[in-house]
């Protein structure tokens, strides 16, 4: 049951082998028992979840089930869900009960999925280890002394530990793919604009994208098919017809050209990660794919460009947290300005403040052209690199992260070291292309390694097909951490 795919669960529900209430109880029990050691869920509301499960059972009974009806899905605490505490990992939203549903939450509810609970995350999704959460760090289910990656570390950990069959995360610079890699699960960041950002707390609006996290590529396809689609309430939502993202799962992949960017296999890549990724690439070669040596020369500049653009957009987006309309307000203050300054000083954590200061600086008078505009131009160069490479290959493969999960506390004192960890994940969102991570083995410390696939715009179905083919001949995605069986 714990390793069952979403379609197997749906089938068991359809055949009345179990009810959604039973399935939801099973995962709620596991969540309550295993969360003490993981801190991966920040809010569980069994009453609310079970009420949704009862509705799903009714719907199944009426023969009106859709693929996700009755299936519990955990939500990163960045998504507004009406009546649920939505903290975004921050003290400043510690009392924020969302008065409306995010678009993806609406979509999941319409599909009949059950909201299993809200998962822990880096504060405002700013981090690569889930250690900046106001609600304490999340432990990696594979090694409790290691981080789960971030910022969707809670969502990755609940899928890895089998506390939930699937989860939603968000990816701005790698926040779905990097924790998926470090926890041994699958995670997809869709093409920018494919999934509506309405009701998803904004971090860097030109990069933020919601993405599914699950055990397999086939599960990701089901989730993405449910959440993707046009929404007029997000001005960057693309007007495209809905898609069945599972349509290419059975397509043959022989003859496909896999580009291997040399910049993703150079200095800085840990030898154990390199070995696992190369073994996965060799497996694809056995499946009939062709390997192409390619170059993404601007890769090194993607980290500095990202750490100008993302903080700049964050400093604007986070201006709305002022203690006047919702969320935390400082208990004592002298006047309005003092109320703002104390509320924000007390409500935001250290990493969020650092990024607000960086963003304020690069947007300030006299520095805008030198930093913000220059970073936007470098962003264009990065996107042009990809356009060039996709002339010669169908998909790009490489590592998701330079190392396996590092120890809790190892990088918190040195923000630059933490940022450099994002080197392989920031290029895709800067270009706006889809990218996904799937488990492809283990490193020297027995921690999972992720293989990253990057495709051209709107190539999600083909990429999921490629990932699925690999998962038919390997079982990395079915391995479970000790203590979670």
């Amino acid at each position, binding site marked *: 049951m714990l390793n069952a795919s979403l379609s197997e669960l749906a089938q068991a529900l359809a055949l009345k082998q179990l009810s959604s209430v039973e399935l939801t109880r099973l995962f709620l029990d596991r969540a309550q028992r295993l969360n003490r050691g993981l801190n991966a869920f920040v809010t569980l509301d069994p009453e609310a979840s079970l009420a949704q499960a009862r509705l799903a059972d009714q719907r199944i009974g009426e023969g009106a089930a859709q693929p996700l009806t009755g299936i519990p899905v955990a939500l990163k605490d960045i998504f507004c869900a009406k009546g649920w505490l939505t903290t975004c990992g921050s003290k400043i939203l510690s009392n924020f009960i969302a008065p409306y549903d995010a678009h993806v939450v609406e979509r999941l509810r319409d599909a009949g999925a059950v909201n299993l609970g809200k998962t822990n995350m880096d504060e405002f999704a700013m981090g690569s280890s889930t250690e900046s959460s106001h609600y304490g760090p999340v432990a990696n289910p594979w090694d409790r002394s290691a981080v789960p990656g971030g910022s969707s570390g809670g969502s990755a950990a609940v899928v890895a530990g089998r506390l939930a069959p699937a989860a939603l995360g968000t990816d701005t610079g790698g926040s779905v793919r990097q924790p998926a890699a470090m926890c041994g699960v699958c995670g997809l960041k869709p093409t920018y604009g494919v999934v509506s950002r309405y009701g998803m707390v904004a971090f860097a609006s030109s990069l933020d994208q919601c993405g599914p996290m699950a055990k397999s590529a086939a599960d990701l396809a089901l989730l993405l098919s449910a959440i993707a689609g046009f929404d007029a309430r997000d001005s960057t939502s693309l007007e495209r017809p809905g898609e069945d993202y599972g349509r290419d799962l059975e397509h043959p992949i022989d003859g496909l050209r896999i580009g291997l960017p040399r910049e993703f296999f150079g200095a800085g890549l840990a030898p154990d990660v390199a070995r696992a990724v190369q073994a996965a690439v060799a497996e694809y070669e056995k499946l009939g794919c062709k390997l192409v040596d390619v170059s993404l020369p601007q890769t*090194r*500049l993607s980290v*500095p460009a990202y750490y100008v653009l993302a903080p700049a957009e964050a400093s604007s987006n986070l201006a709305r947290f002022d203690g*006047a309309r919702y969320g935390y307000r400082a208990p004592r203050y002298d006047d309005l300005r003092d109320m703002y300054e104390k509320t924000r000083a007390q409500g935001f954590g250290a990493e969020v403040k650092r990024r607000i200061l960086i963003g304020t600086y690069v947007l300030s008078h006299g520095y805008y052209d030198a930093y913000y505009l*220059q970073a936007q131009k*470098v962003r*264009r160069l990065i996107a042009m690199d990809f356009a060039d490479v996709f002339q010669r290959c169908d998909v790009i493969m490489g590592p998701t992260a330079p190392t396996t999960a590092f120890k809790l506390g190892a990088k918190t004192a040195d923000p630059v070291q933490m940022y*450099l960890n994002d080197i392989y994940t920031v290029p895709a969102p800067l270009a706006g292309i889809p990218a996904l991570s799937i488990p492809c083995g283990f490193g020297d410390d027995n921690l999972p390694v992720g293989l990253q696939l990057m495709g051209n715009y709107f190539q999600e179905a083909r990429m999921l097909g490629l990932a699925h083919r690999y998962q038919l001949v390997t079982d990395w995605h079915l391995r479970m951490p000790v203590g979670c069986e």
Partner: protein
Amino acid sequence: MLLSLDDVRRMAQLARLQINDTEAEQVLAQLRAIFALIDELQAVDTRGVEPMSHAQGAALRLREDRVTELDQHELFQSIAPQAEAGLYLVPKVIE
């Protein structure tokens, strides 16, 4: 370009973040290290390159000018730190 303590204080003021001297000193050291990384961008030749602000280069959609929102102020103000008679309460700004 080396950031100064005054720069940090000025940014904190602009961003409405109260910051004491110890915090400012700490954050200055971190920001200098981060800007050493960011400054790598300065060496890139970007003459003639169009800045990229959106992945799809999409323009904002226009819609008909009509009211589409329902009045939900009671619901939204029910989670406000202080609200009264449909208004958000903040310290007095005009004497």
